[in-house]
């Protein structure tokens, strides 16, 4: 067997915001840089980010990076690493202004400065009152960012390999990363992309859940590759959810629907929020609503043939109000639920949209395992865990994460490449062979589990056992179940064995990545017996000693899941920032 090799200074997997920002840094430094992407770069999932990117520019009112840092630490429920958070918040104004100079069409004030708007959780003067910190380009911030960065990369001669899927990481006998094995979709030919430095910027893996706002491409490819290569995944129990996505589709129904009088009902038509929040009822906060919905479903009062969702009812509203005030919602409901909400209620379920955990890195984007930097390996963006989002991400900090850590990992790679020997070392073959064998197994297996069935089993298991609100027994069962699902994944079969754009095989390879993330999530969540940020457990309740169920004495630490034997390890949270004093532990309340 001989797999052809292409050689570069740097190879980047993923062409969303983080990958493009890093690539720009490398290409502008004159390094030969390859970027691999499953889809055309400007169709990466970054395009879905609407809200904006936060930076304490102070264009509309006084602001300071230290206040931004405070908000981010608090938002993270103190699980974020304070060195990385200080770095990100201090760098924010620089990377945003830089992006402006790259041609990003930010909304502007009358005086020409970047317009800034308030966003949940961003406050002035250490949590005192909301501050205008989010910079946006209408409701297309992510889209505009991708375009600005892509154009700039073309100018800098970044080499794009579009419609290529990376399959596996290549490490030598000492664990140094040498590049990736990748497949060209059009021909199914497999190549090694060998490089002095390799960056994963592959985004999140929200598709592990049955209900997710993530695009179909968000299959955690970087996480799967890292896990198979022996790299642990950090804090994978932390996922952000929105209470109301269309069941079976994941498209969000804005909270404005409940504001206009929408009512949540269970299978017997009961307005169940009256029991959980007698005063606020359907207008209770996100976590209270999510928790109530999940409790109804778990106790058998869910709707539909699988009793796996509840109903959002607006049939009692004046059809004219629905048409005038909620036109988008009617369209979404008809399109994605097949229901006209004027006539029938909308099936909804808590829906996953962001992954806080990922490949463990420091704020320089270097991958760190057991206290040591993995030579030649970097990660940035949603796939990485620096960790700036800790147990819960603040809105607009995700686009900031892409820019800051895309750039910093690019800089780290430049430094590393400059000191590396001029010629690439001999390529280690063991990982290459394993990767080729993995594809070959799919090509040759006759009889087994359909890819769609394996994926659906995984998604249903994650949604039911490890969703927005978690129960001790359900998690324990979930661990056993997801390991059963893994056996289905290992036995997947594809009907189409052809060579050209074989989407069946691509999807099977994606599911092989997703299952690693699913296991990491379930096993990490089962072990963490507290509630913190987005990880909320029924058996870790609000007590005077552990407000909100958070148990700092035992759980102020990062989880590390190792694929081998599904082992868990832990490492301390970095409480010491780079230059300022530690932001001390406090109960998180707004």
């Amino acid at each position: 067997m001989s797999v052809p090799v292409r050689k570069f200074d740097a190879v980047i997997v993923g062409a969303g915001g983080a990958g493009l920002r890093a690539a720009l840094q490398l290409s502008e430094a004159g390094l030969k840089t390859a970027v691999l992407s499953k889809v055309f770069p400007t169709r990466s999932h970054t395009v879905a980010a609407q809200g904006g990117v936060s930076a304490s520019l102070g264009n509309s009112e006084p602001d300071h990076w230290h206040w931004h840092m405070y908000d981010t630490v608090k938002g993270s429920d103190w699980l974020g690493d304070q060195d990385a958070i200080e770095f990100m918040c201090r760098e924010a104004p620089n990377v945003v202004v830089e992006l402006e100079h790259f041609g990003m069409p930010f909304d502007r004030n009358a005086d020409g400065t970047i317009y800034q708007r308030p966003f949940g959780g961003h406050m002035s003067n250490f949590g005192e009152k909301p501050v205008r910190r989010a910079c946006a380009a209408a409701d297309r911030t992510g889209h505009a960012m991708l375009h600005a960065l892509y154009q700039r990369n073309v100018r800098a001669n970044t080499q794009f390999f579009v419609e290529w899927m990376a399959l596996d990481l290549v490490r030598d006998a000492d664990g140094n990363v040498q590049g990736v094995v990748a497949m060209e979709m059009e021909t199914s030919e497999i190549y090694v992309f060998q490089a002095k430095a390799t960056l994963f910027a592959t985004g999140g893996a929200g598709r592990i859940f049955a209900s997710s706002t993530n695009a179909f491409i968000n299959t955690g490819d970087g996480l799967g590759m890292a896990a198979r290569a022996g790299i642990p995944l950090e804090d994978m129990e932390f996922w952000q959810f929105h209470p109301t996505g269309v069941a079976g589709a994941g498209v969000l129904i804005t909270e404005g629907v409940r504001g206009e009088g929408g009512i949540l009902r269970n299978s017997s038509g009961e307005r169940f929020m009256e029991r959980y929040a007698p005063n606020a009822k359907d207008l209770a906060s996100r976590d209270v609503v999510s928790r109530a919905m999940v409790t109804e479903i778990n106790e058998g009062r869910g709707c539909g043939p699988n009793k796996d969702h509840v109903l959002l009812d607006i049939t009692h509203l004046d059809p004219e109000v629905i048409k005038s005030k909620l036109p988008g919602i009617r369209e979404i409901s008809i399109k994605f639920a097949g229901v006209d909400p004027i006539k029938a209620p909308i099936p909804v379920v808590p829906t996953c949209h962001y992954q806080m955990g990922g490949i463990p890195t420091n704020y320089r984007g270097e991958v760190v395992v057991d206290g040591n930097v993995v030579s030649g390996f970097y990660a940035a963006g949603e796939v990485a865990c620096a960790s700036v989002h800790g147990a819960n991400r603040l809105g607009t900090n995700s686009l900031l994460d892409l820019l800051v850590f895309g750039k910093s990992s690019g800089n780290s790679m430049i430094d590393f490449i400059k000191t590396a020997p001029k010629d690439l070392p001999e390529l280690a073959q063991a990982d290459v062979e394993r990767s080729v064998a993995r594809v070959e197994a799919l090509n040759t297996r006759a009889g087994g589990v359909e890819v769609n069935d394996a994926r659906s089993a995984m998604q249903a298991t994650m949604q039911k056992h490890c969703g927005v609100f978690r129960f001790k027994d359900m998690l324990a069962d979930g661990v056993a179940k997801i390991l059963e699902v893994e056996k289905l994944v290992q036995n997947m079969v594809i009907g189409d064995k052809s060579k050209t754009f074989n989407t069946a095989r691509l999807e099977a390879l994606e599911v092989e990545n997703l299952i690693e993330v699913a296991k990491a999530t379930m096993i990490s969540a089962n072990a963490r017996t507290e509630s913190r940020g987005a990880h909320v457990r029924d058996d870790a309740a609000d007590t005077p000693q552990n407000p909100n169920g958070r148990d700092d004495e035992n759980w102020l630490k990062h989880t590390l899941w190792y694929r081998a034997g599904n082992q868990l390890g832990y490492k301390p949270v970095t409480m010491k920032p780079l230059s300022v004093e530690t932001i001390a532990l406090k109960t998180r309340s707004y």
Partner: protein
Amino acid sequence: MDEVELKRIVWRSRRGLLELDLQLERFVAEDLPQLTEPELVLYRELLQYPDNDLLDYLNGRSECPNPRLWPIIARIRAAQR
């Protein structure tokens, strides 16, 4: 259109936005096999638009500047009902 090109079109119906994935997935499964050659060419052209623009056309929030693509847009929209 040869088989490779058809399969390329299927893959390019995967987008950065979930709302597009869901709509195009259904269209590809149900309608693509029935499209004539000229219609396939139009669909391929439509896929060139940025995700946000494409979503606006499919939601009727804005009008595609190329009237030749209106019939295929109407057809994708009809596939949802």
